[in-house]
């Protein structure tokens, strides 16, 4: 009898199906600057990697736990501001600023998450929105700390007193390394038993409670993980620009990340990366029409919901499957 039980394919196949392509892409990106990848493409890659990280961190909530946050950029902004404030007031040493900025993000995420996860659906969206706008107003109005609407100029980083991450090339490799580490870490999280529990909560919260899971604790954990990686993205963004302004925490930024995830496909781990690449490339190509950027995004939304609910990644997977079925 036991022999008849078919166990589902275990996670063992992931390293091959996803790990190898991932390693190849990372390697290609790593040798890019060495074989003459133009400067503007390098900074485009940095931007895509930074925002991919932000989108991936949101997808821990959205795609895996089923919590739609419209305030995710708050942690992106707080990560950047924490880094900027520490760097300009105490020390620009990244051995201190990096961990301190991420700790500050998580510290804020604890009360915000603890309160927000009591709500679900549209109300969760509205309360995360409210908290994020409170962060935005604080960044905008608390001029002595944040520089208000003028933003905050961040001194160049050092490591143990030595200037680091000076050239754009150095920063390119730094971003690539941080992205790779965070990507692997998040992948490990969502493909663990913990990640499967999150999926269970997304699928059926009441049942998860009934089979003994403390749902709120898991939701809070997912919230904190998402916030922490969002803080990392915020830190990268602040170090890249050596400047931070309140707009990075504004709700339109949160909405934009949401777009990235949904366009790429929230149901896939790589979806947010695909979506970010598409949105940023679009932004780049349409840069002379930025006035009507909203029109492009709006049309994307309408097409997405009307025709491609699973995002671009979903479409690609469907095409791949169909072509494979056609050629047996």
């Amino acid at each position: 009898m036991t022999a008849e039980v078919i166990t589902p394919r275990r996670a063992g196949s992931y390293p091959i199906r996803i790990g190898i392509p991932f390693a190849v892409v990372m390697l290609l990106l790593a040798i890019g600057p060495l074989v003459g990848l133009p400067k503007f493409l390098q900074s485009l890659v940095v931007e895509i990697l930074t925002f991919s990280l932000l989108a991936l961190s949101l997808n821990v909530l959205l795609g895996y736990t089923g919590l739609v946050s419209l305030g995710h950029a708050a942690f992106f902004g707080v990560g950047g501001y924490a880094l900027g404030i520490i760097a300009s007031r105490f020390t620009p040493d990244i051995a201190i600023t990096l961990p301190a900025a991420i700790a500050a993000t998580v510290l804020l995420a604890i009360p915000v998450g603890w309160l927000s996860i009591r709500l679900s659906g549209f109300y969760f969206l509205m309360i995360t929105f409210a908290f994020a706008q409170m962060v935005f107003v604080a960044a905008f109005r608390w001029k002595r700390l944040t520089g208000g609407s003028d933003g905050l100029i961040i001194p160049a980083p050092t490591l143990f007193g030595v200037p680091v991450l000076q050239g754009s090339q150095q920063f390119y490799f730094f971003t690539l390394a941080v992205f790779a580490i965070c990507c692997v870490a998040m992948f490990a999280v969502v493909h663990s038993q913990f990640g499967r529990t999150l999926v269970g909560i997304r699928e059926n919260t009441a049942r998860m409670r009934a089979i003994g899971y403390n749902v709120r604790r898991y939701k809070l954990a997912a919230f904190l993980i998402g916030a922490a990686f969002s803080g990392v993205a915020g830190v990268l963004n602040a170090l890249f620009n050596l400047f931070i302004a309140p707009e990075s925490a504004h709700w339109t930024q949160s909405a934009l990340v949401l777009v990235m995830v949904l366009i790429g496909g929230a149901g896939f781990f790589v979806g947010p990366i695909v979506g970010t690449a598409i949105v940023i490339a679009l932004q780049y190509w349409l840069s002379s029409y930025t006035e009507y950027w909203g029109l492009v995004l709006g049309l994307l939304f309408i097409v997405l919901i009307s025709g491609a609910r699973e995002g671009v990644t979903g479409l690609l997977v469907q095409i791949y499957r169909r072509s494979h079925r056609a050629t047996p």
Partner: protein
Amino acid sequence: MLEFLTVQSLNGLVYSMVLFLLALGLSLTFGLLRVVNLAHGAFFLMGAYFGTTVWGLTHSFWAAVVIAPLGAALMGGLLEKLWLQRFYVRDELDQVILTFGFALVFSDLMKVLWGKDIRGFPTPSAFSGAVEIANISFPSYRLLLILVGVALFVITWLAIERTRIGALIRASVADRVMVSGLGFDIRLLFTIVFAFGTGIAGLAGVLGAPIMGIYPGLDFEVLITTLIVVVVGGLGSIAGAFWASLLIGMAETFGKALVPEVASFIIFALMAGVLLIRAWGRDEEEVE
């Protein structure tokens, strides 16, 4: 001091009533259709712009007030009929994104059609004067707005509670299957209610235009405040929308006058607080 209080209270009331007109449509739409229409702010701005165009053509305030809301209602009805109707079976996130997409598209189209300058048109001559209230002269047009807001509250409330179509709406909020069982075309009812909601938003826009000034981006500003009002008042409740409009309208007016630095912070904190109080100590999700 007393003068300050009176003036701010009256201004707060005016603002509250504009908010109520917006919240009324959004709340009603949600109560019946279960759709949070994020394009609602766009219909406000659309109404205002329609108003400027009609005023430009006719120089009649009253023509603008009649035609602009009808235009917004027509656009709303078309949107519901041609697009949204197919998406009621989807989950709420899909509808939120879809209507947000339309909000962005409408916003930019209006920018193309009406430009980026601040626009407006004068108050009608019959209401260009001022009225003495407690030794303060207050523009009579603003008083008119207060009256319109209260009147619409009473009328809609009575319509929902006392008329046949109101009964239908109440019944379909409670049980959609039953209403379609009565032989009434529920899809038509949905279109009517959606058009009514967007029409009222358009009315708010055209009535607000002479005192607010209209410009691109105003649609999202009013959308956010309206969402806060509707969430605080309870989605789907008309009386809730009315009292929440007063609360938020007054809080914002007095906040901006007394503590301009943190006024918007207070509004968001207020919404978060109300949401949490309502969620606290509630039974777990109801499933059978």
